[in-house]
């Protein structure tokens, strides 16, 4: 273990981002978990923004991170509302069932 520097935080954020990406891909059955993966993606991006804010010693990154948190809350609300409406119509939350537009 080396002394923790900014690179460690960057690597942590990148690993989280990749985990979120993998989570979007492997969950073909449950839309809820895919939405959670999107939350993880946004979280990793805001960690990276805060890290770079520290690196540049400027508050820009933290402010952007704050906006990301607000946007993530809005996204979660609308996404879950759409999911509930979808569940009412189809009685299912599988991603495989989301193909009505295909005809």
């Amino acid at each position: 273990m080396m002394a923790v520097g900014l690179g460690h935080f960057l690597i942590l954020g990148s690993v989280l981002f990749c985990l979120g990406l993998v989570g979007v891909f492997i969950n073909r059955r449950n839309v809820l978990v895919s939405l959670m993966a999107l939350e993880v993606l946004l979280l990793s991006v805001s960690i990276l923004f805060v890290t770079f804010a520290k690196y540049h010693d400027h508050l820009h990154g933290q402010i952007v991170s704050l906006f990301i948190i607000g946007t993530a809350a809005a996204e979660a609300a609308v996404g879950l509302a759409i999911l509930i409406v979808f569940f009412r119509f189809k009685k299912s939350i599988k991603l495989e069932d989301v193909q009505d537009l295909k005809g």
Partner: protein
Amino acid sequence: MITMLDLCFYMFGLTLIGSVVTVFLARNTVYSVFALIVAFFNSAGIFLLLGAEFLAFVLLIVYVGAVAILFLFVVMMIGADEPLKKKDLFKNVRGFILAAGVMVTEIIVFVTGKFTLPSATIMGDGDSQISNTHAIGEVLYTKYFLPFQLVGILLLIAMIGAIVLTLRNRTGVKRQKAKDQLQRKPSDTLELKDVPIGQGVKTK
């Protein structure tokens, strides 16, 4: 020499990654939500290590208090948990390759690139006299006023959208109609009659 910062970073970081993995692999969706809450707590710890105290607590309030609880409500409303089956895990190989490619590229950039990283400690910058929250407050309502208001409007629109999407009028449910109740007048329902003695009143 392992300092307190290192210890905290590895603790928060490893728990964060472990709980995120748990989110995707948990058999029950309720466990996924709880693992997500653990992940949010640990990322708040990471934010604290980076000196962003205000953001850490905003993260706790917004993510744990609002988003995760929203997820929990929806999980309990829908209640369908489809556990991840082993044969589905490797169905989407292209996605895996894409994610792995991104990861490998990042590691190569970090390890070989000219991107030098300062290894000095991150906690405690000496020159700032005001707290993090104070500093954010000073710029948030002046320099970033317009984006701040736009995020507020975005949240309002999202709230209205969520309500409009999920609103439905159920048939067959007895409910109070306040408008009809308040618009009732005595003349609609009440009729005064003079009753002749010995004859009574004829009902219609």
